[in-house]
């Protein structure tokens, strides 16, 4: 850590304190603007918890029921607030329980700082009680990690930890602190500022030549198409994007992670791309002449078959992470940089245009999709409730105001297809890793990350049971989240694939579920179950109006499928609208 240089030589405040490493850690949290911590105490982190006893007024600590809950909550917090989520956990099992969340945060570029306790430095490597090689285990799932054995290192290491987590392409950081360092007394000077390692350059400087090249391509284009990813949200470039889109007149679609960067009802918005995205944006990806990808990473769920993805188009890729350029899709014009900087530069260079004919193509596709899929999903002719009509019901009540957190599976795809958003950072979901059990804890975090908006967690009956213990956190801290379980008695997405691609051999996807209403009442969370259309509307209304957390279980169609679908290994233009099309296209 010797590389880190002190910038402001002395200090802003001359106050010098003799503090323990634990106290220093908490002081650093305050200096970094941290107000909320998610954590779970244990042996090796006890000195930090002891110090926390005196910081109760300044730091809000949410004591979860499982460390995985803590990190997902921190992710939810970060995604709803745009700030760094902070987690405290103990050594050994406390740290290993974080691994799934770290992987999730790495793939979804979520800024999280995790503090893990560690055994005394002199015991390291002795297989001491609750000792495990946390740095070794977390290396592939962190942006950066570091083990602190001497409290003197803490100010520098923590400055670097927060800086690395939040800058460039954000990501998770683990700082493993041995117990002796937590107890060690050091002289701590407040507000020491560090410039973190001069060599870490998180934001590349935009290349004007490339921008001009890109603008020339865009200005000559007849059928340009913009796909946005989470980079726009992470770069806080929503306004800049809107200006670009409105000036250039280019139709814009989003990836699942880029959702809510622009309002879903914007006239230039054409929907979601990807395996269960909208018909038009998928189909027309293979017809556009210039594809402008902003802060997205061409995930396989977005591109489908790579060698048939937008091969006709010139591709412009704006990204802050150089490693993403040319990783999956060969790019004609790469534009490195923070999109908050690069988008306005591009806006300045592009002509104001209207693409009436091209837009009409998207509108026609939307009409087809509406007729063949959406109409029947939202207003089903059968008696069974569909997932889409529940989400439609939420839209009517929320009017795009709610933050919607989803778990993983069919309900997630349905929610992302049908939910409407007015504001940025409204859709919180586990995109890259696809972590079932994400929704309840992430919703808790989102409720702390943005206290002004209602938070609705949508989940299936499978995912609901993967971190159901966090209902205890909701109870203890009176967290105001609405929990919506769409229960079809199956692991729906796996069942859908078994139905479509494995000759309906339903192998271990049936769920014999507990009584969710009773479970909720065990946690003093009011709840009800609805099974009919008449009851649904009333129940949703009741849930929305209820002052406090509420659980609503909706029994939905057991074998409802998510369409449109780009079958795995197929080109995006092979998107199918229903089972029949899938059969004919597969033949």
């Amino acid at each position, binding site marked *: 850590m010797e590389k880190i240089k002190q910038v402001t030589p002395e200090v802003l405040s001359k106050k010098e304190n003799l503090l323990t490493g634990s106290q220093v850690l908490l002081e650093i949290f305050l200096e970094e603007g941290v107000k909320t911590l998610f954590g779970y105490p244990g042996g090796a982190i006890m000195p930090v918890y002891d110090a926390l006893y005196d910081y109760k007024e300044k730091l809000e600590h949410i004591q979860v029921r499982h460390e995985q809950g803590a990190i997902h909550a921190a992710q939810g917090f970060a995604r709803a607030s745009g700030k760094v989520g902070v987690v405290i956990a103990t050594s050994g099992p406390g740290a290993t329980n974080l691994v799934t969340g770290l992987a999730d945060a790495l793939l979804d570029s979520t800024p999280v700082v995790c503090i893990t306790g560690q055994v005394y430095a002199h015991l390291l490597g002795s297989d001491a009680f609750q000792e495990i090689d946390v740095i070794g285990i977390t290396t592939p799932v962190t942006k950066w990690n570091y083990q602190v054995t001497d409290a003197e290192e803490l100010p520098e290491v923590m400055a670097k930890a927060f800086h690395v987590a939040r800058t460039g392409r954000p990501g998770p950081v683990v700082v493993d602190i041995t117990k002796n360092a937590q107890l060690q007394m050091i002289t701590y000077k407040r507000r020491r500022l560090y410039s973190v390692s001069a*060599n870490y350059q998180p934001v590349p400087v935009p290349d004007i030549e490339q921008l001009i090249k890109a603008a020339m391509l865009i200005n000559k284009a007849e059928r340009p198409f913009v796909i946005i990813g989470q980079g726009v949200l992470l770069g806080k470039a929503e306004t800049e994007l809107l200006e670009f889109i409105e000036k250039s007149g280019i139709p814009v679609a989003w990836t699942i992670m880029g959702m809510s960067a622009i309002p879903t009802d914007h006239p230039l918005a054409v929907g979601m791309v990807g395996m269960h995205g909208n018909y038009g944006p998928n189909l027309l990806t293979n017809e556009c002449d210039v594809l402008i990808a902003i802060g997205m990473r061409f995930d396989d769920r977005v591109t489908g078959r790579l060698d048939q993805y937008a091969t006709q188009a010139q591709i412009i890729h704006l990204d802050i992470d150089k490693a993403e350029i040319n*990783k999956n899709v060969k790019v004609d014009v790469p534009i490195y940089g923070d999109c908050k900087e690069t988008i306005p530069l591009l806006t300045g260079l592009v002509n104001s245009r209207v693409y009436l004919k091209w837009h009409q193509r998207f509108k026609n596709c939307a009409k087809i999709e509406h007729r063949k899929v959406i109409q029947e999903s939202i207003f089903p002719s059968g008696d069974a409730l569909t997932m889409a009509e529940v989400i439609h019901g939420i839209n009517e009540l929320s009017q795009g105001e709610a933050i919607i957190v989803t778990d993983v599976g069919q309900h997630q795809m349905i929610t992302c297809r049908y939910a409407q958003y007015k504001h940025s950072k409204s859709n919180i979901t586990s995109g890259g890793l696809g972590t079932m059990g994400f929704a309840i804890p992430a919703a808790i975090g989102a409720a702390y990350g943005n206290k002004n908006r209602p938070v609705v967690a949508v989940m299936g009956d499978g995912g609901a049971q993967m971190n159901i213990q966090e209902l205890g956190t909701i109870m203890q801290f009176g967290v105001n989240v609405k929990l919506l379980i769409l229960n079809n008695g199956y692991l729906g997405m796996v069942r859908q694939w078994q139905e479509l691609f494995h000759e309906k051999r339903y192998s271990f996807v049936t769920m014999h579920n507990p009584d969710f209403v009773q479970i909720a009442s065990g946690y003093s969370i009011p709840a009800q179950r609805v099974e009919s259309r008449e009851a649904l509307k009333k129940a949703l209304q009741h849930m929305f109006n209820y002052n406090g957390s509420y659980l609503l279980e909706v029994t939905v169609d057991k074998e409802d499928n998510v369409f449109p679908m780009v079958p795995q290994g197929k080109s995006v233009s092979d998107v199918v609208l229903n089972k029949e099309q899938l059969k004919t296209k597969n033949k």
Partner: protein
Amino acid sequence: MNRKQEFTITIYTENNMGLINRIALLFFKKRINITKINAGPTDVAEVQQFTIVVTETEENIQNMIHQIEKQVDVLRAYYNADNESDKYETVVYKVPTRVIVSQQKVERLLHFYEANIVVRCNDYTVFEVTDQKSKINELEEALEPWGLESFVRCTGEKRLKVNIE
């Protein structure tokens, strides 16, 4: 671009513990086998150097370089195709001492290639040479008839250029 060939990747990093693990995992993740690896200090204080030799396509190597440079503690990474002439290698040879003593030719060879004696005992002598790969090959050929007992090309190719801006 799509033909597999030998590449040498040079990485300059901060001197942080565990970094070798982080870098090795990147190769493992892409299932690229490391043929040779060499790590050590550079003449710039606090800067470490890794030299890694792999056989891969250039396209994958370019992506790998980006993945490596993305690591917070990595300062710079670049690659060279292995047919380039500026490559140096360090080798250790063991020859019978009597050959060196009795054969002037051998002694001249060692002098010419600037060999450093590492161990000298009655039975054998161990010396070390650092030179271009082609020169090392020449030396090896020349020594062969005189009873080269054993040798180790113990290190990865080590570039002598240190260009940290």
